[in-house]
């Protein structure tokens, strides 16, 4: 094990030490460590400005069109069909992702609708409205590095003015709003302190009445070498405190979720304590051409992930035209591609008592 993967010295405490002294020493250590690890990165500065709603609506329409051009888009009615299937049925209890771990009533399965708003917040709002119409909860994670949210201008992040009204629309529907975290993009590609970005954007969303109590990591570790949730204390692979990306040392375990008012990370990751350099290299370098639609990559990422496993029973992702991936962690069964009918039939046939997360990127239902 290399230096960087050793345990936090702050935890190697003397049992006879006074608790107050230990607390003081731990804080001091963490502050020094943070400053040391974050040296060399530019501070995150954000201002409001940028594009209005009409301009961003047009950008989202382009995202939808390009997905249609790739033959991956679906009509919105597919989303409605899935929501209607679960709404107000005795067998299912639909919950926001923040309540995933709540106890299940007997003979029920729980389903969470997770919406990663990667590129199309307009269809995201349409989905939130549909859920409100049906009285069904859903969780929506806004991506702070997405084009609809803002852009970098000479190292300063400009939040689009449109965002305020988009967030107001989401708040009005009563859905859960969280942050789709992407700090590693800012660290790795722009030498900007991505941890500050996460903190600042959560504070900004809260200033707009969004009750943010959770986050969901954007992308996968294959892109930069770490999962975005590894910036949270206690959530890194093998307890590592950083990793190398494009010749830079990127810090991990910087943010304390509790002190930021965050109750959960939406992958409910259960980290592996073992970090092996060779295993990591092999896992992270596996990037087939068809990416997330490659069965081999899906197996690698969902079923045989050496970094973390998920704290629920099933992942269901919409990844193409009437094409879903189902990963059942209880049985090790993976299905891809399966139609909506097959996916829903599978859930209906399984014994209740499971917790499933249905992940939808709204641009996939924007036709």
């Amino acid at each position, binding site marked *: 094990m290399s230096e960087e993967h050793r345990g936090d010295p702050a935890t190697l405490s003397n049992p006879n030490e006074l608790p107050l002294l230990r607390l003081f020493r731990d804080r001091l250590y963490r502050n020094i460590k943070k400053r040391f690890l974050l040296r060399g990165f530019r501070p995150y500065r954000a201002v409001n400005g940028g594009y209005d709603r009409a301009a961003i609506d047009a950008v989202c329409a382009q995202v939808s069109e390009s997905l249609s051009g790739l033959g991956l888009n679906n009509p919105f009615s597919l989303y409605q069909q899935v929501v209607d299937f679960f709404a107000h049925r005795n067998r299912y209890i639909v919950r*926001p992702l923040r309540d995933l771990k709540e106890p299940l009533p007997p003979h029920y399965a729980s389903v969470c609708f997770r919406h990663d708003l990667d590129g199309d917040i307009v269809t995201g709002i349409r989905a939130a*409205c549909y859920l*409100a*119409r049906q*009285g069904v909860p859903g969780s929506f994670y806004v991506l702070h590095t997405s084009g609809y949210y803002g852009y970098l201008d000479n190292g300063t992040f400009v939040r689009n003015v449109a965002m305020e009204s988009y967030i107001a629309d989401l708040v009005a*529907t*009563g859905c859960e709003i969280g942050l789709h975290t992407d700090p590693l993009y800012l660290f790795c590609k722009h030498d900007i302190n991505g941890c500050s970005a996460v903190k600042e954007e959560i504070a900004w969303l809260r200033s707009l009445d969004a009750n943010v109590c959770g986050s969901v990591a954007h992308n996968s570790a294959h892109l930069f070498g770490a999962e975005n949730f590894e910036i949270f204390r206690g959530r890194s692979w093998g307890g590592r405190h950083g990793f190398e990306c494009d010749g830079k040392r990127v810090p991990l375990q910087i943010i304390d979720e509790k002190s930021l008012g965050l109750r959960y990370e939406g992958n409910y990751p259960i980290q592996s304590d073992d970090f092996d350099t060779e295993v990591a290299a092999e896992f992270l370098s596996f990037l087939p051409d068809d990416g997330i639609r490659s069965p081999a990559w899906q197996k690698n990422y969902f079923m045989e992930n050496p970094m973390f496993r998920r704290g629920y029973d099933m992942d269901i992702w919409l990844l193409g035209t009437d094409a879903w991936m189902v990963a059942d962690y209880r049985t090790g069964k993976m299905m891809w591609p399966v139609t909506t009918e097959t996916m829903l039939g599978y859930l209906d046939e399984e014994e209740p008592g499971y917790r499933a997360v249905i992940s939808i990127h709204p641009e996939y239902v924007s036709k």
Partner: protein
Amino acid sequence: MKKAFGRFFGKIRHSNRPYFVIGCHRSGTTSIARIFDEAENGVCYVEPVPNLNCEARERMDGQLGEATGIVQAAIEPRISACDTTVYGEKNAPLGMFTKELLQLCDCRFIFVVRDGRDVVRSLINWHEGLFGSIYRECKETSNLTEQAKAAVANLPVELDYSDYFRPRPLPGEPLFEQWENLSRMEMCAFFWSRYNDYVLDALSGLPDECYRIVDYSIPSPVEIMEAARFVGLEGVEATKVRSMLDKKINSLKDRTGFIGGYPHWHDWDDEQMGKFMTIAGSTMKRLGYV
């Protein structure tokens, strides 16, 4: 005091025949309930729980079958706990269960109706001034007060039973596909129309002596006192009724001090009135408002 004294000694004459005040939201049901609650020999609770919001929506949607057991489990304990007075409550969702309630307790109904245009205006002012959660899926931007903003931000959709209760068009209905693009005014018009049609249809199947319709468009103290007598209440005095009507109980001004900004229907343009009448016109005719 008089009521408490009478209850204590069990001397108040009562009919033991409960009553229910029903009516679309913002029709004046809370106002009449507060007036009825002033009676010497009776009570009128405002929206006691459980109030069957979800079941009422399912009933309106045609998805709830036999409901006697549900109604009995929810309502009977409340009536039993109040055995020395005339029991009354106001609860809009109970308008969907008139048949079951009649079977359960041989009750009477006061069905409060109000001009749909006034109701729609009041609903939108209520939305903007107080709760911000009337038809949460509506795309229309609302000019919410700080109070309404805070209220809507702190009420997750899965706990918003009031908004869930409000009906939406079903697949196959003309408005189903258009719904997501309708204005809040049109959605509220749909609510008013659907609710009143449902209750009018249901009451038409009950004996006339079971219900009384009270028009609250321009509330009349005489009509209210007659309704009170109809349900067996005593001591509802004209001066008190007038004074309570003057206070405009449960109006936005009464609750918040604000006067809502949505225009009176006299000031609606032709397009706005046309949209309202397209959705609610037949119910307006049925109730004699046009």
